[in-house]
């Protein structure tokens, strides 16, 4: 059942990447800001899990809830303390600020915890395997897929049927006009950051779940993947980000099984080639989205 294995692996990897990409695009959609500190929210959740697991007796599910909440809180606080102040100044100021936040958070962990990786205690479910339709697969693959489906459904309902969701979509389309409806700019922007951080926190659980360890640079790869997936899928559409995540997972797995063993270390090079092709041939991504490129001021 090589094919069944491939399908489950691809869906699992794609789900994780879809969540990663979605978190980045939530903020980009409204602020038109690529938040380079995004990977650090993954890191913060990872270290929360490490600290709670190593120094407290709380059960694993409390650890996970706290970890996700910490990522969302960090994301909200970075908006409040850093981005809000430079938002009106210029796009470049916000971009540089996101680098600054990234460096600051990374160095805080280097300084106060350790530059070396720390082991994270995980529930046994993360190391178990199950058999589905004759395919033996790690249980966490199935958990990743299930969690992603639940979250995507929840977010879809939120964006479609709550007034806050409607306001978020409106703000991504025409920010100033949305304010003219009485929607507070700070409300939608804070909310975007909270969702972004929340998604980073969930991603962190499964990301850390693969290696059972966390290190100060753990956020870099998720950030890169989110960026690539959104370039493929489309920066201006939430659906595009999700689609980009799954396509990224698919391409990655196809390269993994088709490349000869001697070439496998060049897998990332092939991924970047695909990204460059996208930038050249279809810079708006697979799904164009109908959001305008209005600056938020």
């Amino acid at each position, binding site marked *: 059942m090589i094919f069944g294995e491939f399908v489950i692996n691809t869906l699992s990897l794609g789900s994780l990447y879809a969540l990663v990409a979605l978190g980045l695009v939530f903020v980009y959609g409204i602020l038109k800001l690529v938040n380079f500190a995004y990977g650090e929210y993954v890191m913060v959740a990872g270290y929360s899990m490490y600290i709670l697991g190593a120094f407290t007796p709380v059960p694993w599910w409390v650890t996970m809830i706290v970890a996700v909440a910490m990522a969302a809180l960090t994301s909200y606080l970075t908006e409040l303390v850093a981005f809000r102040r430079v938002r009106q100044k210029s796009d470049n100021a916000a971009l540089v600020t996101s680098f600054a936040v990234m460096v600051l958070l990374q160095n805080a962990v280097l300084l106060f915890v350790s530059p070396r990786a720390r082991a994270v205690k995980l529930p046994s479910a993360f190391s178990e395997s199950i058999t589905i339709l004759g395919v033996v697969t790690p249980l966490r693959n199935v958990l990743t897929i299930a969690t992603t489906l639940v979250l995507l459904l929840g977010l879809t309902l939120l964006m479609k049927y709550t007034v806050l969701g409607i306001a978020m979509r*409106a703000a991504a389309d025409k920010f100033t006009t949305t304010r003219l409806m009485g929607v507070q700019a700070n409300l939608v922007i804070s909310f975007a950051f909270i969702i972004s951080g929340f998604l980073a926190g969930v991603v962190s659980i499964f990301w850390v779940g693969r290696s059972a360890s966390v290190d100060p640079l753990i956020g870099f790869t998720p950030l890169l993947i989110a960026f690539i997936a959104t370039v493929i899928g489309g920066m201006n559409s939430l659906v595009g980000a999700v689609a980009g995540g799954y396509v990224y997972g698919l391409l990655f797995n196809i390269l993994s099984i088709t490349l000869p063993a001697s070439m496998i270390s060049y897998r990332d090079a092939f991924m970047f080639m695909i990204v460059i092709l996208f930038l050249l041939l279809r810079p708006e991504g697979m799904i164009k989205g109908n959001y305008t490129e209005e600056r938020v001021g």
Partner: protein
Amino acid sequence: MLTIKDLNASYGAITALHGLSLEVEEGELVALLGTNGAGKSTTLKSICGVLKPTSGTVTFLGEEITGKTPEAILRKGISLVPEGREIFTSLTVSENLRLGAFSSYNKKRYQADLEEMFELFPILKDRFNQPGGLLSGGEQQQLAIARALMSHPKLLMLDEPSLGLSPTLVNQIFDLIAKLRERGTTILLVEQNAERAVHLADRVYVLNTGNLEFAGTPDQLEKELDIADVYFGGDGEGHHEVTL
């Protein structure tokens, strides 16, 4: 109701308004006229908080609102129908209207408000679940006005509502403005279609390159234009194209 005093506004180094003073009384329809670049839209943007004036004051219902955020000013009761309509194209008509009621949502009143909008703009009922982007220009303009009315504004500001519409639709929009006025809505109307606007207005302001050129009633304006025609050799129909 609305008092503007010595308002100056600029875009970067370019000054768009030079010490404008203007007043709108409750229940009035005031027309703000002028050519392209006269500062009409700038005035509206300064009132509703989209543009921060460099100096001067805007007072609404006895409270100074100069430099407040757009969302705060809307909550005071000023609603703008922006130039170019600015419909949320990816949102449905229903969602556009729901956002219009964002600041003052009241479950009981909402349904009644919708019914009222359907009566004023029957087309919106047919299009209720369609994306705003699929509406025609005239339909979008109606949606933009309905969306603004959903917040129960004390002052409704319309920026070029007839721009880009066919003559039939222009008539429709002006009929509608007349209807809103009869309902007692206070309106500040910016228009390039000066003749139609003057016809409806209680009072008229004319701007020219950021300076106030005329303030008074439509009758006074007509007299002044006739005099201008006499002195500067108009074609006797000056008020058509002095378009002020």
